[in-house]
């Protein structure tokens, strides 16, 4: 089919109703099964492709191709379980698949209609009880999927699949049914705020750009997701690229732009591949290009590959980078809504923000505003990681307490350890201590703790994490990524890193904390862009909530979490050591001495604190003090 109009769009959608109903578990058609195999970057890295190919082959061999369809989705949300597969209509979830499992799935599940028990998800928080259905797994059942609604339901490389799930219906409404004022009004009513981190109201941003004078305007999508450990935007692009394209079409109509760019980091090849396919397919249907859906509105877009610079996630740096220069931020005003790319009025939105827009237009701003807190509306996707049992992408309504995310969805802390803090917002964010775990996911509430909502990184830390060391890690990241244009960020982050490093090495002095705070305030207040303005947050928030740990490092020359190597000593507990000699053999520096069957000793002068002895000791006789 070539270019389509609105009726034809609806025709495609209605053709897919039966298919989607099967995947939503609503109808049963003669034993028809849809095997949705996860195919995001994490799945591919866990070798999901051989599983996909093997199952396709086996189904064909057994003559089941008519009633069993194998579809690769972009789902890698529960990353630790990859490769995964959901079989609809029953919604059974199989995990950790290998090509060897294919035979059992086909003969037991597809032919005999029996569950393959050993491949089911086992709930580690409930005595490894198997849970067959995906939506009964607490990790999923406690989430609210809007941005990630198509994660397990569509083939991201097939535009028809997306259309079955309402893709481009919001665009049709925006282009044909309602005025540009009404589009902006609905986005304002929805209350959605920028999901890239700063949380600026999207509707207002659009209004400024709409009001700006000029015939040429641009819509940009920021897909330069750079926070270490964060992969929300990558997943959206890999699982549902049409939602982002549609969001950009609607934004373009709202501000009257006809050209757009998606700035995507080159480190995301699969996202770029799927976006490229999506753009080609949308063009073929006339959903991009001239006269979209016969509405008379023109809009097209290109992918622009970032070349690896964290600072290019900052809006002015991103635009300067698209212009082909060193991506260094410039002062604002003028704001991009007045003078952005090529000095033309420009709207820049994050992937997650744009992916929400079609739903907002389709269902109305009120529908979205009903979810969340008074000032933070809708849902937010987080990349939950660290010392938590279930790690992966989680989408929750704004206003959910952190506690619920960590325990109900994340399943709590492994090995019965104590939760110490939750780090939110990556290198721009901060650590929220365990006694503030009732804090809800709300822009203002999180800012109140000294962290920021940020783009969605959420790292859980337990008693074994040293907060000074964490602060040093993020400080090092910011210092390396500082572009060097403004002095406070270039020099300030460097000096702060030196001081924090000195503290972790046991050379801290009592004035260091005050110096850090003073420097941090200066860097925050006087840096040119968001990178520098937020870079001190990890240090400031850890000083605020874990000052005692800093003091222990400085005054007592002690690292309470036993992380900082300069401040710990390895010892052998005499009562426990039978003198087996194992530690002596593995020690790489011959620091351990002792006769067979006699208590051994570690020479602290020689010991490099590598931990090889602890790993080898069967008697727990080696301790870190």
């Amino acid at each position, binding site marked *: 089919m070539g270019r389509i109009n609105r009726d034809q769009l609806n025709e495609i959608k209605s053709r897919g109703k039966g298919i989607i109903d099967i995947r939503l578990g609503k109808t049963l058609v003669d034993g028809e099964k849809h095997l949705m195999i996860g195919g995001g970057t994490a799945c591919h890295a866990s070798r999901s492709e051989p599983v996909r190919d093997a199952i396709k082959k086996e189904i064909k061999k057994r003559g089941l191709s008519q009633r069993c369809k194998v579809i690769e989705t972009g789902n890698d949300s529960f990353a630790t379980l990859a490769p995964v597969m959901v079989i609809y209509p029953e919604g059974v979830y199989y995990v950790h698949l290998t090509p060897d499992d294919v035979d059992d799935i086909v003969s037991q599940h597809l032919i005999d209609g029996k569950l393959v028990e050993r491949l089911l998800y086992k709930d580690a928080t409930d005595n490894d009880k198997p849970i067959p259905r995906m939506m009964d797994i607490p990790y999923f059942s406690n989430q609210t999927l809007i941005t990630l609604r198509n994660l397990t339901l569509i083939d991201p490389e097939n535009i028809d699949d997306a259309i079955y799930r309402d893709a481009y219906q919001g665009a049709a409404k925006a282009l044909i049914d309602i005025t540009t004022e009404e589009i902006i009004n609905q986005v304002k009513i929805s209350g959605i705020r920028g999901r890239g981190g700063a949380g600026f109201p999207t509707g207002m941003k659009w209004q400024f750009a709409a009001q700006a004078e000029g015939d040429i305007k641009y819509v940009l999508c920021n897909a330069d997701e750079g926070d270490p450990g964060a992969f929300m935007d990558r997943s959206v692009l890999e699982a549902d690229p049409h939602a982002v394209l549609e969001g950009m079409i609607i934004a373009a109509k709202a501000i009257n732009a006809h050209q757009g760019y998606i700035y995507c980091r080159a480190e995301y090849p699969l996202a770029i591949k799927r976006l490229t396919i999506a753009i080609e397919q949308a063009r073929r249907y006339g959903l991009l290009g001239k006269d979209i859906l016969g509405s008379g509105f023109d809009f097209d877009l290109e992918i622009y590959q970032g070349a690896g610079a964290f600072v290019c996630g900052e809006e002015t740096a991103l635009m300067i980078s698209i212009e*082909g*220069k*060193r991506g260094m931020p410039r002062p604002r005003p003028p704001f991009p809504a007045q003078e952005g790319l090529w000095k033309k009025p420009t709207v820049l939105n994050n992937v997650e923000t744009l992916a929400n827009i079609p739903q907002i237009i389709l269902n109305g701003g009120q529908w979205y505003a009903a979810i969340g807190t008074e000032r933070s509306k809708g849902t937010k996707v987080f990349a939950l990681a660290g010392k938590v049992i279930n790690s992966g992408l989680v989408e929750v309504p704004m206003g959910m307490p952190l506690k619920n995310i960590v325990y109900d969805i994340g399943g709590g802390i492994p090995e019965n350890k104590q939760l110490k803090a939750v780090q939110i917002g990556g290198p721009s964010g901060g650590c929220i201590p365990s006694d503030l775990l009732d804090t809800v996911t709300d822009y203002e509430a999180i800012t109140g703790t000294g962290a920021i909502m940020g783009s969605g990184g959420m790292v859980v830390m337990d008693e074994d994490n040293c907060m000074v060391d964490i602060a040093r890690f993020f400080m090092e990241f910011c210092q390396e990524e500082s572009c060097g244009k403004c002095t406070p960020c270039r020099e300030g982050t460097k000096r702060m890193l030196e001081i924090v490093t000195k503290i972790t090495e046991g050379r801290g002095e009592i004035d260091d904390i005050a110096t850090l705070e003073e420097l941090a305030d200066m860097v925050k207040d006087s840096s040119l862009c968001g990178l520098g303005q937020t870079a001190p947050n990890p240090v400031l928030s850890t000083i605020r909530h874990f000052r005692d740990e800093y003091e222990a490092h400085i005054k007592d020359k002690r690292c309470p979490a036993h992380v900082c190597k300069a401040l710990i000593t390895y010892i052998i507990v005499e009562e426990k050591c039978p003198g087996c000699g194992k530690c002596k053999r593995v020690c*790489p*520096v011959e620091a351990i001495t002792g006769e067979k069957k006699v208590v051994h000793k570690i020479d602290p002068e020689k010991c490099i604190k*590598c931990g*090889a002895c602890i790993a080898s000791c069967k008697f727990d006789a080696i301790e870190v003090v």
Partner: protein
Amino acid sequence: MKKITLKMWKKIDGIIQRYKEKSGALIPVLEECQDVCGYLPMEVQERISRGLNIPGSTIYGVVTFYSFFTMVPKGRHTIKVCLGTACYVRGGKANLESIQDEFGVETGGTTGDLRFSLDSVRCIGACGMAPAMVVDDDTYAQVSKQNIMKTLNGYK
């Protein structure tokens, strides 16, 4: 150093030609040229400078700003030899030297056939496996002069 062949120059000129009229084309041009040559030596930057009519200093500025660009060729596989204390005392340095001798490559350099780039790293946290070596994404434990070449022969 890897030579830029006549074929490569032709491709580079083709890329420049394609982007010539486009504003903001520098970064995509650099990305595509790096795909062709594997790196962006001065001579390639100068050619792009003339072709796009952009000062060489601007191009050098962009190449050195973004981590994706490199002015030294990278091999198909990256070897990282750990020289953390544990690995160092267990023979990490000798392993590094044997790779240098066998392939005629310096630390930080790349073999003439672009098969390997060689680097040394500070501790990778695998002290119990010392001496350790990482090739691409695979970590190898207890590397020795005896097994090192056998391991590397698996990477073509």
